[in-house]
């Protein structure tokens, strides 16, 4: 929007002192302010809440996944992933934090459940070998354990994606 100017000011164009008529044009651009110091984006303090609280929440997630396994709630990793995806909106965490968190909660949860079985004196290793054999895999316990944790992880990641999709984070202007 242009300024309203008088006729006398318009007549002074081209004459001495006409530099003061710079105001006839559009507003001059403002001078940029001092530069902001550079900050790494994943450390940018855009998340909400206390970090410790998030860590505690992750530990609770592990416990919930483990408890779910022991109570035949095999779908708990999916629910945890879903909840994590929803919580992103409020928490402001990026994928670089959220995905590893989901993996830790899901794999850690089912891993903890297997650890509890072993602590009870059950033959987890031998059972893992048996499962591998019956499933047609090489007789290696690590394969079965890896497959088990993988199923948990896939559930969690699927839940995370769905959670993010249902409640997306607003885009920055």
């Amino acid at each position, binding site marked *: 929007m242009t300024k309203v100017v008088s006729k006398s000011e318009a007549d002074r164009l081209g004459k001495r002192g006409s530099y003061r008529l710079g105001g006839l044009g559009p507003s001059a651009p403002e001078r940029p302010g001092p530069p902001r110091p550079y900050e790494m984006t994943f450390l940018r303090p855009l998340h909400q809440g206390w970090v410790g609280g998030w860590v505690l929440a992750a530990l609770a997630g592990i416990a919930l996944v483990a408890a779910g*396994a*022991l*109570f*035949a709630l*095999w*779908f708990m990793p*999916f629910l945890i992933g879903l909840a994590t995806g929803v919580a992103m909106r409020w928490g402001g965490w990026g994928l670089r934090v959220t995905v590893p968190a989901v993996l830790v909660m899901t794999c850690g949860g*089912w891993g903890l*459940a*297997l650890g509890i*079985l072993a602590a*009870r*004196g*059950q*033959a*987890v290793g*031998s*059972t893992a*070998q*048996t*499962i591998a*054999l*019956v*499933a*047609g895999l090489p007789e290696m316990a690590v394969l079965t354990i890896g*497959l*088990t944790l993988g*199923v948990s992880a*896939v*559930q969690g990641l*699927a*839940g995370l*994606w*769905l959670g*993010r*999709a*249902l409640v*997306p984070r607003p*885009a920055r202007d």
Partner: protein
Amino acid sequence: MDPRRRRWRLIRKVSNGVAAACVAAAVLVLCTFGFDGIPALGRALDPGHGAWAAAANAQLPQPEVLRATGLTGPTLVSFDSDGIATVQAGRLADAMVALGYTHARFRLTQMDLQRRVAEGRLSQLVGSSGLASDEFELRLGLLRTARREWAVMPKNSLAARLLTAYSRGVNDYLATLRAGGQWPTEFSLAGVYPAPWTPVDSLAVQGYLAQQLDYTTSPLDYAVLAGSLGIGRTMRWFPVQTAGPQHPFDEGPYRVRTAAASGQRTGGPAGQRTGKAAGQRTGGGAGHGSLSSGLGSQPPAAVVRSAAAALALTSGIRVGHAAFLPVGTAWAVNGRKVRGGAGSMLAGTAALPGLSSEWFQAAITAPGYDVTGVSLPGLPGIVIGHSKRIAWTLTSAQSQSALYYVEKTSHSRPGDYFWRGQWRQLRRLHYTIPVRGGSSKQFTVELTAHGPLLTKPGVASPAISVQWTGTGGSPDVAALANIGAAANFTQFHAALATWRSPAATFVYADRSGNIGAMTAGSFPVVSHGSPWLPMPGSGADDVAGTIPYAALPLSYNPPGHVVAAAGQRGAGAAYPYYLGTSANDLDANDAAGAIYAALDRRSGIRQEGAVALQTSPVSEMAARVIPRLLSALRHANLTSAERHAASALRHWNHQLSPGSAAAAIWAAFWPDYLSATFGPWWHVADVPVAADPVGLSISQAQAGMARDLEMWTLADRSNPVFAPAGAHARTARSVMRAAFATAVAQLTTLFPGGPSGWRLDLLSATPVASSAQIPVLGYGSRAAAASPWLSGGQAGAAPGAGGSAGGGGLAGASGPGWRMIVRLSPGRAGIVAEGIYPGGQSDNPASAWHDNLTARWQHNGYLPLPAAGAAVTGAMRWEFLP
């Protein structure tokens, strides 16, 4: 914001949401239901449940109090450190409740798999790969037989009460599993779980075990062989009577029993027979018809085609080869043969297909039934063992339990067959076979008066039906219960009077010093025709009856103080009834002869001596043949390895010790010799071995061929069999030299270190099947001593040996399972018994009791049996309360 940008953002959001939802749904569906053979991964791999729950099941039993339905009083079960169970109850039925629970606790996978195979529901668990087995079993009719048996069984009879009690125990354990979700891995991964157990299931399992031991396809094999070799050669090489010296436990005299006389006994208990005598006939009568004494007629080409088609039904599954399975051995001695001269001794090995650990060791103490030994999960009772007074074991008997009929049909009369002068309608039964991972299959079985059709009538091949004695049912449960209560041989013999299937030879010993051997079972008698071939189904060759029980082979307190059974023909050549042919002879290696020879030489046998006899026997056949071989090699141009091998044979004592190089050479040579002799004939005649690789191939398990070859080697070295038409002239000597060279070359290839590294146990490594009968869960190959005690001679066959025409039978796939030695004394010493089987009491591979017995078995060790009538002791115990 630019409206276009806003629109694209919306599209991206919606697309992302839809994609996320689809992926989540797919993951959840896969985890909940599975897909196309992939199990429901979420349920299956849930750490606290699913397949992982088997880890809890693998734990050893803890002391606990359990509630069981159907009990009338407290019942105890205890376990020793090896897992051997002792059951103590106030009633026999209560003991069976506890036994059922215990069997299910440790062998549920085995029980359910055998039930599924028997009832044609294997595909429901394993998918389409089980269809061939399901179709065969539904055709043969184990389930039909079991249902019919249960329907006619008086529900207040002993067998019915025991079967019902046993089922209750199994179902109590299944209820525990359903509540806790701790299913065995196999079920969790498949997502298919065992149904409740019923008495019909026990009877079906009984039928399945009988089928494994007693179902034979030999008439079909004869037809196919005759189609290639001609009936003359076929009957010469697979004669009705096995060539060479025979060692029946019943040497006669024999009587033809009339129907009226069939229940009478002569002499002492159960018709005591003494000494050898020519067979005597007291006239004909019902039960002994005019069997064709000739070779039988050359089967028409159409019948040969049908026979091959019928064989194809079973070639891919493990049935129809009863003659090729090791059946174990049994012997008993008394008198001066036993140390101290008083009492008796009994020893036996008992094999089931696949060197399996299907046996479950237990002791049961209940009023009137104090028995210890081995049981078969799925069935109530002890099958082999001893009571406070007697001991017994069993082996499979030479018998042809299956007859095949060529049915007359017509294209103008579809659905009909001709029998006894009339056209009759085929009976049709329809089944639905559920298939895991696929759609259910509809299956129809057609039956004639003889039995189910194995093949469909076609233009170029008639339909063939089978009549198997096992489809008539058999009161084995009652018989075993009565055996356990028997106090003497008369009662023992009476207990087996109704035993029909599987045909078996029982060996007996008691504390009073009596011993005996007897055959029990249903042996069909045809009034006309050649039962070793498929017979016309018009009715003239139908079964006219069975051999009367009193006429079956029997020996009681023989003067030689020895009875022995190793699957050989139980009676001599003069026996007036048809028992089967050499194809049904289960003693191809003359194990019975070896046993008799070894025991005849000894006296005052002690427990340690019995162990040596059982685990390191001598091969009498090798003792007869090796000198001929060495003679043939005398002037031959031998390589260094061959000279070393010949030297080893020259100094060999013919003992099949695990570390013996000479035994390994013999084990490699004999099948090669068979192949070298008969192989050219098989090749020229183009015998279709693929139709039945086990039954039609040249094999040391073929008793007829093996004994023929021995006889020709010893007494007829110029027999035409050594010189096939069109081949260069050969004699036994030249064939032996060639076979010897082949054997040494094989051993050199297998053991590159040279003759010093040749060992029988390394040559005959035998895969030990798991008790769950799941191949991948086997125990792996275990070096097992080859043994002529193994009828069929599977162990000891060199890999690749045994025939150029299709392999060496089931070489290396089977072996003796349960081994037992029982010393019975009349005095305070009572009964001392020990036994062992490969594997362990639990079919859970994660259990400490899964494989704990194998090493001891492998190294010829034994474990003491719990005493009969022993009370429950030990900390690992369950207390069952009503």
